[in-house]
């Protein structure tokens, strides 16, 4: 595997920002009740992370290391505001659902983590790939969690531009099936993420820790 494609695929499984590095958990819990906000949030994070990585990588030789955190924050904040404004303009409903969490991308640990650990020491193209890779790793977990929670919690799946699809047929409800109210509550997101981590660790030899 070439080095560049490793940058792209590594964070999706072996170095996943949520399940392995355990970063960015808060937003994973908050926006996964329905699928649509989770997808929009994922796209926003991928965009912000890739662009911020490129910008910081371009600036990396000119940033004095004492003020680098402030510079990183300024870059991220500018990009997040941009994303927020675009969302407000083109899909106000989703923007309302995501509410403060788009703004909180600024404090998402994945972003600071990647800028500090990768973009400050690598060339723009590699940084871009790293941003896309880590953003996708975040997106995959978010989408799995949101699918489970919406399917079992509301019996529907909501896709951007398509709208709400009823997945569980009406006849199930007539036989006494009920939506699982616990799935809509935040603790269940934590448990679903926990189960994903459990399954991933037991499937992947490299991740099993020796003790």
């Amino acid at each position, binding site marked *: 595997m070439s080095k560049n494609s490793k940058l792209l695929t590594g964070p999706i499984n072996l170095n996943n920002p949520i399940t392995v590095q355990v970063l960015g958990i808060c937003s994973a819990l908050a926006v996964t009740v329905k699928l649509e906000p989770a997808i929009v949030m994922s796209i926003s994070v991928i965009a912000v992370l890739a662009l911020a990585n490129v910008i910081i990588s371009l600036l990396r030789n000119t940033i004095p290391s004492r003020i680098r955190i402030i510079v990183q924050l300024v870059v991220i904040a500018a990009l997040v505001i941009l994303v927020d404004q675009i969302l407000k303009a083109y899909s106000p409903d989703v923007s309302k659902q995501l509410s403060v969490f788009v703004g909180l991308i600024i404090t998402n640990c994945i972003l600071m983590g990647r800028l500090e650990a990768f973009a400050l020491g690598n060339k723009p193209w590699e940084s871009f790939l790293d941003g896309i890779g880590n953003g996708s790793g975040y997106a995959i977990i978010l989408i799995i969690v949101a699918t489970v929670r919406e399917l079992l919690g509301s019996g529907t799946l909501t896709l951007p531009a398509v709208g709400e699809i009823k997945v569980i047929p009406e006849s199930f409800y007539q036989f*006494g*099936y*009920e939506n699982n*109210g*616990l*799935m809509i509550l935040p603790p269940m997101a934590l448990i679903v993420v926990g189960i994903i981590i459990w399954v991933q660790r037991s499937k992947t030899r490299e991740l099993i820790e020796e003790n």
Partner: protein
Amino acid sequence: MKGLLKYVEKIKPNFEKGGKYQRWGAIFESFETFLFVPGHTAPRKGAHIRDAMDSKRLMSIVVLAVVPALLFGMWNVGYQYFLSIGTDVGFWQEFGHGLYRVLPIIIVSYVAGLGTEFVFVHIKQKEIEEGFLVSGILIPLIIPVDTPLWMVAIATIFAVIIGKEVFGGTGMNIVNPALLARAFLFFAYPSKMSGDKVWVSRLAEGNGVIDGYSGATPLGQAVENGANIVDPMGHKLSTFDYFIGWIPGSIGETSALMIFIGAALLLYTGVGSWKIMFSAFAGGAVMGLLLNTFASDTNPAMAIPFYDHLLLGGFAFGMVFMATDPVTAAQTEKGKWIYGFSAGFMAILVRVLNPAYPEGVMMAILLMNVLAPLIDHYVIRANVKKRLKRIKVAKIN
């Protein structure tokens, strides 16, 4: 008993290696240890503490202890049902209806739970653990009789996996699996776990229910009527009624009398800690008294006399059978006092001050389960500090 023991000893060689029925050896062994002290609890060599008590016997005693509450619960299910449709059919038919409604729940709970355990035995390749014996009988007793069976199955599987297996199986769990199953049902399917319609068999369907009948539990009414609690027909209920337990409620929780019989067995055999039980009831009484003192019109439930609190709802059942679970309770002796007292105290606090959760017992015990290791930690630290001080004093002298 002696004759039985002789008979078991006589047929034993048939089931050992090389015997006629060695294929059934495992099953014979489980029956033998259920009945008598197994001869192989600890290796005979080495510095082990040898005790006839193993986890299988421990669990069978708890199962035996809940039998009175279970039988009474079955009768009460039938009694409440025929009360709601206004016919008087006599003891056996009432018990029969209860048996008919409760038995499927018990079977589903055991099949789902043991099935999950077997899957994990297969994955982990180790011996089956007896941990589910108790949870399997406790789960049916703490849920309303009308809970759909598939919900019982899902809650049981959830409790076994998330409550127990992820932590490493029996003995490693942080919270009580049976209570976790109930908490799961309570939050996942609130419409089947709370309200006035779920506690009496088939009340929600409403077939043949007599006019003016209300299936509200005493605690459900307390939110509005305070101490002025009536039975489904409108007669006032007394402390004696709560004690005997012919009131609507979860299957096994209503009868304090039957629970105390079970508690006596647990205490006599030393399976349940008397420190936890006693301090839990003390904690509940103290909180009840406090609330009585500050009773006001804003929350009528505060006026319930403290002794009624100890008999109502799942308090007695939870504190006797759930809080004393040796795995999830505090382990240190001082810790047990703190643990039990806080559990009782919190249970009444949640029950009265948060009308959305009339069953505060569940929340309180789960909360204390989580806090138990912390309590133990500080009890041990305090002891270490005390002993260190003693050393210093000795040095100065």
